[in-house]
């Protein structure tokens, strides 16, 4: 495993992200990671708030497109996250808080998927929000807050570039 991470770290693209010093390398990838996160977490949080009773006049049907924003943000975060991980793989791979972050992100994405299925099941009355959807919305907000916390603390609990 460690050898694999060292190999990943030594690839041309990882070396470029880490060492080129270009604004298009580490800084731009990091900015894309932040924009992706804000889209992913922001869209999900807006949905969660609606399900928890904020803005009850907003019809749930058209709000389904929020999932498109959510998955677009997820794709951007994952793609940029892979590049950031590659640049620093052997250190990040051995950092507990990074593994905690990955676990929380994975759990939050699973919750987002289940949330969609719970609300938009065919034949479901779109106006009534089942209690299970509210529980998922609370779990979603807590998991994202946890994932952001773990992500930020990586910069302070890991040696190397933040």
């Amino acid at each position: 495993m460690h050898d694999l991470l060292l190999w990943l770290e030594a690839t041309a693209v990882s070396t470029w992200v880490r060492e080129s010093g270009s604004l298009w390398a580490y800084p731009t990838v990091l900015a894309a990671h932040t924009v992706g996160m804000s889209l992913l977490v922001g869209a999900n949080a807006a949905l969660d708030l609606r399900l928890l009773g904020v803005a009850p006049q907003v019809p749930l049907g058209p709000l389904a497109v929020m999932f498109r924003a959510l998955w677009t943000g997820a794709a951007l975060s994952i793609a940029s996250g892979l590049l950031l991980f590659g640049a620093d793989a052997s250190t990040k791979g051995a950092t507990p808080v990074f593994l905690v972050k990955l676990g929380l992100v994975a759990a939050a994405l699973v919750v987002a998927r289940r949330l969609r299925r719970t609300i938009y099941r065919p034949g479901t009355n779109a106006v009534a929000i089942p209690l299970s959807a509210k529980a998922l919305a609370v779990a979603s907000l807590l998991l994202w807050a946890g994932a952001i916390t773990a992500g930020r603390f990586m910069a302070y609990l890991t040696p190397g570039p933040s």
Partner: protein
Amino acid sequence: MFTPELQSFAAWLHETGPSQWVRYWPWTWAVCETLHFIGLSLLVGIVGLLDLRLLGFLPRIPLPALRPLLPYGIAGFVINAVTGVIFFVGTPEQYVTNISFGMKMLFIAISGLNVLYFETTHGQRALTIGPDEPMPAAFKIAGAISLASWLMVLYWGRMLPYIGNAF
């Protein structure tokens, strides 16, 4: 421009009690950064949704129905303004002559003026927009300015350590 004045202001602020207090506890920075990122997600999620609606997307959602979400977006902004002031007070020297910081503040100002102008001139009209009603051009412009300038705020905030000297 004003560089010596800004630097002496930063040096003075750096020695004040509040500034020393921010730097006293080593985890203040990490905790405030975490809150700053949670706040920005809330802000982008809620304000971005409103902007998309102003631009004419999601036509089946009546614009006034989205209004109750706004306080949560404002809460995100307040969290970030407070933590932002804490960062600035703690280490003013890394911001006062930082071009990224200047750009970030510029785009926050543009966003703020945009929303103030929109609320004062079109706020009442916005409450009457029903589903599938075409958006007036002024609404689309306000939504586009907001979306673009918040994206710029995020970008320049992220560039603070790279086009500039902050961490």
